[in-house]
């Protein structure tokens, strides 16, 4: 499998990297500063169809848009494409719903220090999901290239490895120095779902703490759904413009979802619920128990607040808040 002379990865590129087609889309996207608040249900109905390509913001189980992912499972969306840089609980959720048919993978199946997801592993070993290999940085550069309106970016990574061979990257040479780079194709996901700390009703957003690859993602995605801990006023945003991470004209939908990253960590707000995440891993080992579990926590609840209630409600959330802020 190792061959130092390969010039191209062998795998399929799932999304068209043509920047003029992306420009054509963006030419028509509204730049008007209008009230974009809708419900989680409406966001999924309006923007997420079977077969579309998604990316979720955050990293690991940190600042993830849980409410929208749950709704995607409830709505039974199928054959989704997914962008998997270090994705953990969100990836686990999509596998639980058998939602995926294509994955750009840098880090899937795993849950970082927590171990591996038995069910996600089962799904990924089934052969039912087409995989293209990348690295975290390669995926970030694919978004960055799209955010720059160009069809590729170059990185000094992946080269010489099977990760490169099983990717969709190509080797290019610098016209100035002759140095080799892995060229990675731009990716314009159909929809990005990003959970943020604060947004105004128009979609001007603030992220507190690390931004991971969400600056690039919000700029690359054709549609952007924001879930936010809090709605703030436009005056508030304008009083501190250097802290705006995402400007309104990129955003299609704004949904206020307090504790929206639960059971993940929301920096400065609440820590991850390790008990609940451990329960996931436990029940995933037994398909029957897992089905019951999914029914209890996702399918039979009508919204995210009911889910929070079933997970322990305010007492639980209060303890996670304390765990986060009383370090």
């Amino acid at each position, binding site marked *: *499998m*190792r061959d*130092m002379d390969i010039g191209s990865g062998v795998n399929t590129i799932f999304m068209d990297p043509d920047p003029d087609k992306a420009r054509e889309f963006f030419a028509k996207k509204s730049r008007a500063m209008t009230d974009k608040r809708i419900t989680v249900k409406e966001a999924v109905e309006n923007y997420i169809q079977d077969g579309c390509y998604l990316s979720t913001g*955050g*990293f*690991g*189980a*940190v*600042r993830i848009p849980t409410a929208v992912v749950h709704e995607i499972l409830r709505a039974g969306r199928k054959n989704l494409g997914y962008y998997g*840089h*270090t994705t953990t609980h969100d990836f686990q959720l999509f596998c639980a719903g058998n939602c995926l048919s294509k994955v750009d*993978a*840098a*880090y899937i*199946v*795993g849950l*970082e*220090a*927590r171990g*591996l997801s038995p069910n996600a*592993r089962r799904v990924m*070993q089934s*052969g039912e999901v087409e995989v293209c*290999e*990348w*690295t*975290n*940085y390669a995926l*970030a*550069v694919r978004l*960055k290239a799209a955010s720059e309106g160009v069809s590729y970016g170059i*990185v*000094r*990574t*992946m*080269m*010489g*490895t*099977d*990760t490169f061979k*099983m990717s969709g990257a190509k*080797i290019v040479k610098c016209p100035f120095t002759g140095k*080799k*780079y*892995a060229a990675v194709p731009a990716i314009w996901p159909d929809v990005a779902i990003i959970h943020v700390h604060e947004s105004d009703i128009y979609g001007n957003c603030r992220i507190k*703490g*690390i*931004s*991971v*690859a*969400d*600056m*690039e993602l919000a700029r690359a995605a054709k549609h952007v759904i924001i879930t936010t801990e809090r709605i703030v006023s436009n005056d508030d945003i304008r009083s501190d413009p250097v802290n705006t991470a995402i400007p309104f004209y990129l955003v299609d939908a704004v949904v206020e979802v307090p504790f929206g990253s639960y059971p993940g*960590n929301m*920096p400065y707000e609440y*820590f*991850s619920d*390790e008990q609940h995440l451990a329960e996931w891993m436990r029940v995933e080992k037994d398909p029957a128990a897992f089905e019951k579990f999914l029914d209890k926590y996702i399918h039979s609840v009508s919204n995210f607040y009911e889910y929070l209630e079933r997970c322990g409600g305010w007492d639980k959330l209060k303890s996670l808040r304390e765990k*986060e802020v009383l*370090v």
Partner: protein
Amino acid sequence: MTQNYNMMELMICTASRYLEDGKTVAVGTGAPCATAMLAQKTISPNLVILFEAGGIAPELPSMPISVGDSRTFHKAVMAAGMSEMMTTCSRGIVDYAFLGGAQIDKFGNINSTVVGDYYKPKVRFPGSGGANDFASMCWNTLIMTVHSKNRFVEKVDFLTTPGYLTGPGSREAAGLPDNSGPYKIITDLAVMGFDDKTKTMVVESINPGATKEQIQENTGFELLFSDNLSSTSEPKPEELKILREEVDPTKLVIGR
């Protein structure tokens, strides 16, 4: 033989001594992070710790559970993004990267993608994550892993993350930055470096209680042994104290 430390503690204390003061290290969660924290509290107070998701030089209050969780930028000098961190590696500002892996070969190439055939894997692992990026772009890669024949293999089933690839010059020929590559492998049996000429693994020091034969038996390829073969120092009492009381009091890593 009685010893007042476990293998994980030995590995962490040993590895921590390779992190020089005033250098930069990219770490993940778990043992690598514990190692960097220990080094900061012992020989390298000015060691700069960087996390892949964007945390730069935090004052770590406790072990993070995710490379992106809020501990990774607690009182950090900067909370940036993945791109900031990865480009810092690419520019040649990051001295050490700290990795693990399911399989490793004599050139220090790592597999963390699949065991078995790629299309019909026995086990699917997470994949590169940022490991390939770090091992490609940081100056020196350190690897910590348990020493066993199914980990140290002649040929990795999938080359996720580059070591010295196929030997001398092959990293540069592939396009990777000059003079970068694997530096030390720290296991429960030994510390290994790489032979300058062949770029293959060479045992540099043997851990307390281990033997050359035992090391070779637990390795799936023929090992070189250094002419200056030494014994790995045991963890010092103050290292163990700091590791147990300050770095990992809940035994997240060292308890296993």
